[in-house]
């Protein structure tokens, strides 16, 4: 018998999805070894993770709460990655967005009626600006955007530390590194009994749909896909590579900024040190997992969020270290990335004269 790889004549959506599901299933036994090493029955652990993330109303709503920031970042990132701009800076863009919204909420002195709109606008603008800088450096001077966006994450993190321990430290916070709580008119309303803030939910849904249509059906999306597939060909076809780079970074950074607004305006109600537990980094996973498709990224964000919530649950109930959840996510990502080849190639078995492929 011989085994070989052969290019698939066409790559259908069905193959793409089934390959990814297969990758997730295959990764489970490997993570199972880790659980077993901690003396926990893997099947029990999976069931608890699943029940924790999706099984109860509370778990489900908490999953959505995490889907909001992760989804906003991930959907924006698909846009950037599609144009082959490797934005690793959603984390920093999210933090800057949250800081911008905090300034509007506490220090701008704007009238109460416009404050929420102003917070969202400020979050989008500052997040976008934070992303435009590396985009400009890349398109103008060909400086690698991976390094710049990554470094700018640390800058924003330190800026956040500075404001919450220095000028913006809350007078009523007994010295904790956080601002005063936002006034009620600067907070996002939630769906009764949960922490789901529906302004952000609406923005996430709308931006996912808009980006989906934009990418598939419009001239802008077409240009971005040409740029991503072959920048030299884009130039040749009269498409401006730098304009498209700036555009995708603007959208990607802006959406990450909005994610930051949601965190301060609802979940915490103030700006705190460590406002994001790495949402901007986590979002890279669903962006790829969803096949760089905004709808796919949204679904994948929901899935990853569920794992995180479920992971929190088993931390408590099975007393496992929290880092295990990150290992869990990492292993799944590794499997999905490796499975990419199976979406484009099929495995051919030759037994005697017969060919069987999957």
């Amino acid at each position, binding site marked *: 018998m*011989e085994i*070989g790889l*052969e*290019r*698939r*004549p*066409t*790559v259908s959506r069905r193959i793409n999805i089934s390959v990814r599901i297969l990758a997730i299933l295959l990764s489970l036994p490997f993570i199972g070894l880790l659980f077993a090493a901690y003396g926990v029955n893997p099947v029990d652990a999976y069931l608890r993770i699943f029940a924790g993330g999706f099984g109860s109303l509370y778990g489900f709503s908490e999953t959505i709460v995490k889907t909001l920031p992760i989804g906003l970042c991930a959907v924006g990132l698909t846009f950037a990655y599609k144009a082959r701009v490797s934005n690793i800076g959603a984390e920093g863009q999210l933090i800057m967005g949250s800081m911008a919204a905090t300034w509007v909420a506490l220090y701008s002195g704007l009238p109460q009626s416009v404050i929420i709109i102003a917070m969202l606008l400020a979050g989008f603008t500052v997040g976008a600006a934070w992303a435009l800088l590396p985009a400009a450096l890349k398109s103008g001077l060909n400086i690698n955007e991976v390094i710049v966006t990554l470094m700018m994450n640390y800058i924003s993190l330190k800026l956040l530390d500075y404001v919450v321990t220095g000028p913006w430290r809350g007078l009523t916070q007994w010295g904790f590194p956080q601002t005063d709580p936002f006034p009620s008119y600067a907070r996002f309303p939630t769906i009764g009994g949960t922490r789901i803030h529906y302004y952000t939910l609406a923005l996430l849904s709308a931006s996912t749909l808009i980006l989906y249509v934009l990418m598939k*059906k*419009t*001239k*802008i999306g*077409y240009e971005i*896909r*040409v740029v*991503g*597939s*072959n920048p*030299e*060909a*884009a*130039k*040749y*076809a*009269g*498409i*401006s590579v730098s304009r498209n780079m700036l555009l995708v970074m603007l959208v990607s950074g802006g959406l990450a900024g909005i994610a930051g607004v949601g965190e301060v305006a609802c979940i915490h109600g103030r700006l705190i040190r460590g406002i994001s537990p790495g949402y901007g980094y986590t979002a890279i996973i669903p962006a790829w997992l969803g096949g760089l498709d905004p709808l796919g990224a949204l679904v994948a964000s929901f899935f990853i969020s569920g794992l995180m919530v479920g992971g929190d649950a088993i931390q408590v109930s099975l007393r496992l270290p929290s880092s295990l959840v990150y290992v869990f996510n990492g292993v799944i990502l590794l499997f999905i990335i490796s499975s990419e080849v199976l979406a484009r190639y099929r495995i051919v078995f030759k037994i005697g*004269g017969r060919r069987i492929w999957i």
Partner: protein
Amino acid sequence: MRGIVKRFPTVVALDNVDFRVRQGEIHALLGENGAGKTTLMRILYGMYKPDTGEIIVEGRRVSIGSPRDALKMGIGMVHQHFMLVDKLTVLENIALFVEDSLRTGFDRIRSGVEEISKTYGLKIDLDAKIWQLSAGEQQKVEIVKTLYRNVKLLILDEPTSVLTPAESEELFKSLRRMVETGKSIILITHRLNEALTASDSITVLRKGRVVAAEVKPREASRLDLVNMIVGRPLEFRPRVGNFKKGGKPVLEAENLRVLDDRGLIAVKDVSFVLKEGEILGVAGVAGNGQRELVEALTGLRRVEKGIVKIMGVDVTNTPPKNIIRLGVAHIPEDRFRYGVAPDLSVAENMVMKLYGEKFSRKLFMDIEAIQRETEKLVQEFEIVAPGVNAPVSLLSGGNVQKLIVARELSINPKILVASNPTSGLDVASTNYVHWVFHRLREAGGSVLLVSEDLDEVLALSNRILVMKEGRIVREFGEGASISEVGLAMTAGAA
């Protein structure tokens, strides 16, 4: 090779092919794009496995699982795209190809290589870096590299497509010496003259079947070969069309200076005028500034000095978009670098030039119109693709070239800047492209035809410029001979 069958997911590439090469002969393998020549040779070189059939080397049935096996059996191949490391020297590249080169040592490799160079007349500077070499010299490195592995059968895939006439002649002399020492050579080519003058035997493939085996060149005419390859006579005889001398200038270059990727001057003080209804040929050995000139004219490369005018408008250093809008189409030299976005579909690539005008309504792409146009062009240019929605990365090189030519002509250009437009195309497609160029000229369009294929330039051009070392060194009118032009390309300014 006997009874070879190879199926690919959508097609049968080789259908029961028998192919025989005798020791001590140059055997030409002819056929259209997709006829199966390359597939057959890749099977022989161990890159593909045949579904059925057997390979017999010197009377013994063998199984060749990889190029490594092939080399051990004395079969070597020089590919169309060279497999050399740019930043290493010639000797280092050869050493990379030698098994156990560390133990052999550079000195022994050097003396071995020098001996081979002397025997076959393949002179190369062993200490030059690959990037410093011309395409012809790189090819010598590839040949020497395989000879050093002591091959008995050498497969050359379109070796002359990158060579000047003089270099080609030199190559054939070396090949002749090789067969005199008992080696055998398989020559894949699209050029019929080469098959007729340089080979001892010819096999023709059509659509995966052998249509003529071991034909002796003196028993066949050029026309016979065309009929075998294409299966029908060609419609168009390339000719220099009627050109009204008084045509107004459509493309003007004045004292152009352009740099190459390394920042060295590649185009020096070049001036010329392309007139309405004219095909202006630019001949020259590859790497003498043609690529940089074409890129400067189409807005892809900065013009350091001088002026480019199109339809009387100064377009020096304006974005490509403006130049496209003035009706300039461009068939680029390197089809994969500029010509296509490989992840996008055939249809999406087909409208890369007109997506903003003809194929969109406001913000949205007109997907139906795109599909219709693509289907029409795929049929007209006989592009072989799994479908209009299949990604271009699944197409063969020849079909990618057809796609680009089809797209560029579909925009109804006033000016067509074409670099090696038929490189890698088979006889029938080349003929079709030449006919389309001719038709474009008859309709008052103009073509700047930059090509390394002198036959092509001579057959179509109203005037011919010869480029050497970044300058235009000669201009010929109609009726120039191939030897005159060839001499000007290599001998320098007249």
